[in-house]
Structure formats: C-alpha cells, structure tokens
C-alpha cells in the first residue's frame, strides 16, 4: 500500500538546511495499522505530508495506493483519506453540508454523498448535529467530524496525523473505539502518527519509531519491547541501609542485572520478572530484610526509545 525508497525532505531555514526526513525506506501492506512514534520534530508529519501529496519530496520516491506521489498526485488523492492535525471543517459551515460537500469533491453524486454523510454521522455518534455549526462542536465531536470527512469516499488507506491530541481521556478512548470498528468493518489500512506512548502501544499492530528523520525501530509493540533487556523490578525497603543490604542479596540471583539503589529502593532488570520474583523475594527474606512494596514493570515503549536513543521520549516531546 505504501512503498518509499530513500525518501528525503529538506527545509531551508535562516540558520541553514534542516533534513526533516532522511532516506526513509518504508513498506506498509494492505490492512496494516501502523503508528509512527517519535518526539515532536522527528519527521512524522513531514513524512505524512509527502505521502499525502501535500509536500514534494526533496529526493527519493514514494508509491501510495499504487501511484507515485509526484507523477500522479491526483490518483493518490483519490485513493486516500487524510485527517490532518488541525480541524477540517471551514468557518461558519454546518456539519452535514460540509461533509456532503467533501463527498462531492471526491466525485460522489448528490444522493450518494448525502446518504454516505448520514451513514458516517450515525457511525461516529454525530447524529442530530447536521445543522450545527462545525466550530460549535465539542473537541471530541470536531475530531470525529474530521475523521468522517477523511472517510467519506471509503478510502482504502487512511492517514491520521495526531488524531487524539487535545482530547480528554474519555474522548480519546471513544475515538479509538470508533477507528477500531471502522477498520474491522472495511479493512482500511491506517497509518497514524502519535507522540502518546500508551496509545501507540495499545492501538497499533506495528510501531515505526522515528527520530531525527530516520526510522530507528520497526516492529510490533512486543517485539520492540524485547529490545529492552528485561523487566524492571523495584523493591522498596524501610531504609537506605536495608536497601543496600537487599541489593547485595539480589546480586546473588543469577538472572538479575543492572542492580541499583535509590534512597530506600532497589531497582534491577531481569528477564521474565514475573518468573524470577519468587527467587528474589526468597533471597531478600534469607537476610531477614523486610520489604514494603514490590513492583514489576514490563518495558514500555518509552524504555525502548530510551534504549535506542539515550533520551526519554517524554523529555524529547517537550
């Protein structure tokens, strides 16, 4: 569905040339749900804008839905739906009219655009808002209208740029439920960008991690987490002294590594934390030390990013 080869985009700024996307090779098959994950300025949106014909590549090629983005942008536009970062409805436009007009611009006939708009408004919980001015909708409703506009012509491929940014947790969950349903029903290929780690983790089947314009990791969330060496175990003791003693005890457990203390807590990495935990607890118990709490963390995508770049995605996102 998407094939890029050495795709590059450079921007000239006052301070010099910035390579926003560097030699990107990407292959996405039909039916996949892929998330681009990376900090702000990593090149996610620039890539999306090239794939949606909004921005010309500086060099390299991109084939989207069977057509080249430079040679035949119109064919690309016909086959894809695009939901950008901003809101898609115009100033002073009514919900239904704007949606129908969008359908007409994608070549649908009057009656077809109308029935399709009614269907989408129902699907996306926007019934009864036909004559509401789009700007007067709530944030979640506006976002669902944006998505309705991206879906009006039943595209085989849908691009979503930061679809849930600015939504409250309830609206976010609601939005993802809608997207999952639409995908189940029509088998639409979806490429989305996000800087929410939990979102990429829970929603996407494949995560492409981008940093400084290049792909630094690509795989299922579990595969990516496998790159981090093991689960994080945190043992909380009563004092710093106890923590040091507990750390010494834990060092003796063969699979434990990267053992470290911070105040009254011991942190260590271990493969299969759930399986090794009983052994760790026995080792600590054997020294007569008392633990207050025990936590086992599966690696998160943030750990992945940290392992790959030495930076936390949370920090880079700021």
């Amino acid at each position, binding site marked *: 569905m998407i094939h890029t080869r050495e795709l590059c985009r450079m921007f000239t700024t006052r301070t010099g040339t910035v390579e926003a996307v560097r030699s990107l090779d990407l292959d996405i098959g039909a039916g996949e749900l892929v998330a681009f994950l990376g900090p702000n300025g990593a090149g996610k949106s620039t890539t999306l804008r090239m794939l949606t014909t909004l921005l010309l590549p500086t060099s390299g090629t991109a084939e989207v839905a069977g057509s080249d983005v430079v040679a035949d942008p119109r064919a690309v*536009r*016909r086959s894809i739906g695009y939901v950008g*970062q*901003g809101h898609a409805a115009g100033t*002073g436009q009514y919900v239904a009219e704007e949606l129908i007009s969008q359908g007409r611009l994608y070549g649908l006939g009057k009656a077809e655009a109308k029935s399709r708009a009614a269907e989408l408004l129902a699907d996306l919980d926007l019934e009864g808002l036909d004559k509401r001015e789009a700007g007067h909708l709530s944030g979640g409703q506006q976002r669902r209208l944006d998505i309705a506009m991206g879906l009006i012509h039943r595209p085989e491929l849908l691009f979503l740029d930061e679809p849930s940014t600015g939504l409250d947790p309830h609206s976010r969950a609601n939005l993802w439920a809608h997207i999952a349903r639409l995908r189940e029903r029509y088998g639409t290929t979806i490429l989305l960008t996000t800087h929410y780690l939990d979102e990429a983790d829970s929603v996407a089947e494949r995560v492409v991690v981008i940093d400084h314009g290049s792909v630094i990791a690509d795989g299922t969330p579990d595969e990516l987490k496998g790159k981090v060496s093991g689960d994080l175990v945190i043992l909380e003791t009563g004092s710093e002294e106890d923590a040091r003693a507990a750390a010494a005890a834990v060092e003796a457990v063969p699979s434990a590594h990267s053992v470290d203390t911070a105040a009254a807590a011991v942190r260590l990495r271990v493969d299969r934390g759930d399986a090794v935990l009983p052994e760790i607890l026995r080792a600590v118990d054997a020294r007569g030390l008392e633990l207050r709490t025990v936590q086992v963390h599966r690696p998160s995508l943030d750990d992945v990013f940290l392992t790959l770049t030495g930076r936390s995605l949370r920090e880079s996102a700021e």
Partner: protein
Amino acid sequence: MSLLRDTWLICLRQLRPTLHSPVTGMGFSMLQPVLYLTLFAPLLAGMPGGMGENSLQWFVPGVLAMLALFGTSFAGFGLLPEMRSGAHERLLAAPVNRVALLLGRVMRDITVLLGQAVVILLLVLPFGLRVSPAGAVAGLLVLLVMGIGLGTLSYMLAMSVKQEFLFPAILQTTTMPLILLSGILLPMDLAPTWLYSLSRANPLSHVVDAERALFAGDFGDPSVYIGSGVAVAVAVVALALGTRLMRRLAA
C-alpha cells in the same frame, strides 16, 4: 470537466456561511459604501458644478466601485483562518482541481458583490438616482470583472503572507492610496497636475470613469473602453498569476 465542476462545488461551499447568516455575511461589508452614501454624499450636493447638481449620479457609480474594491480585495482574509485550521489543507489533500480551489472562492465573492451592488442601487433609486438600465448592467459587469482580478490577487496575497496580522496591514496600505487617487470621493479634475497624473496611473480611476459614463448611458464615451479594458487586463493578469501559483501547489 473537473475545473468547472470543482469551481461550482467550491463556490457553493463558500456561499453557505453567507446564506446561513446573510446579515453578517453581506451586511457588514456593505456598511462602508452605505455610510458614504448617507453621511458623505449630502455634502457633495452643496458643491459647485456638475458634481453638485447631480451628486447621486456622480457619486453612486464611484461608491459601487469602492464596494467592489473593498469587497474583493479583503477576500483573502476569509482564507487565512482556514489555512490556520486544517480546512484548506484538507481541500488540498482532496482530488480537487487546484485552480478551482481559487476560482470557486472568487466566484462566491463576486456573486456576493453583485447582490450587494443591486441592493445599494435599489436603496438609492427612491432618492432620485436616474440610471440607464443597459448602462447599469454593463457597469456592474465591468465591476464583476475587476472583482475577479482583485479577489484573485487577494487570495494569492493570503497564500503567500499566511499571517493574519500582516494581511490587513498590507491591504490598508494598498487600498488607501487607490481610493484617494481614484476620484471616487472628489473629481480628480480639481487636482494639481502632479496629483492628476498620479491618479491616471491608478487602474481604479479608469474603472470609476467608465462606471460614471455607463450609468449615465453614455456608451460612446472613450472612458468606457479604457475602463473596461483596464478591468479585463487586471482580471487576465491576476488569473494568469493565480493559475500559475495553484499549479505550482499541485506539483
């Protein structure tokens, strides 16, 4: 023909907010010419010469030209919020003819302009304005042609400036001298030679002269041909530049 169909669809889309609230959509942009007609035109009646004797005959065609200038040259202002949100980008990502994205908007603006001009004419008629019907139709046509040119330039300006605070500043700086040098408010014959020559370099002054001749039914007046020619030239140049800009966006 995707150009015609898309232009029509975009024009309809652009007209909708105006149809939803006609008073804010059409009324406010009409206010300025209406104020000139009520608060300025009576002053002219006291002036010596032809302008004083037939002040409405002299002033109304100019005010319509003023309406055309303000109505269309500020058109790009409506595009800026859609460029800031994602509405314009969404249309660019759709398989819409690029030139239609520009033309459709311009068509909406001159449709509104036509409506406003007709309303003003109907309002002024009871106050003793005498017009040649054929001349008025031709006069409005010339204004619409000029409106196509100015509207196109305005959208091009919006697309290149992109800044909402910069746009009105640039326009005010351009439209003010255009109005002052147009002979809309006072006849430029009264001006010293240097000012008169300057006004002749202003395309709008020729259109205003043509409007006055046309509304009086004076089809043989040379200003009719000069003014119409200027309006057509502005439109042709603007459309050529606008088409080029939109095609470049498509590339």
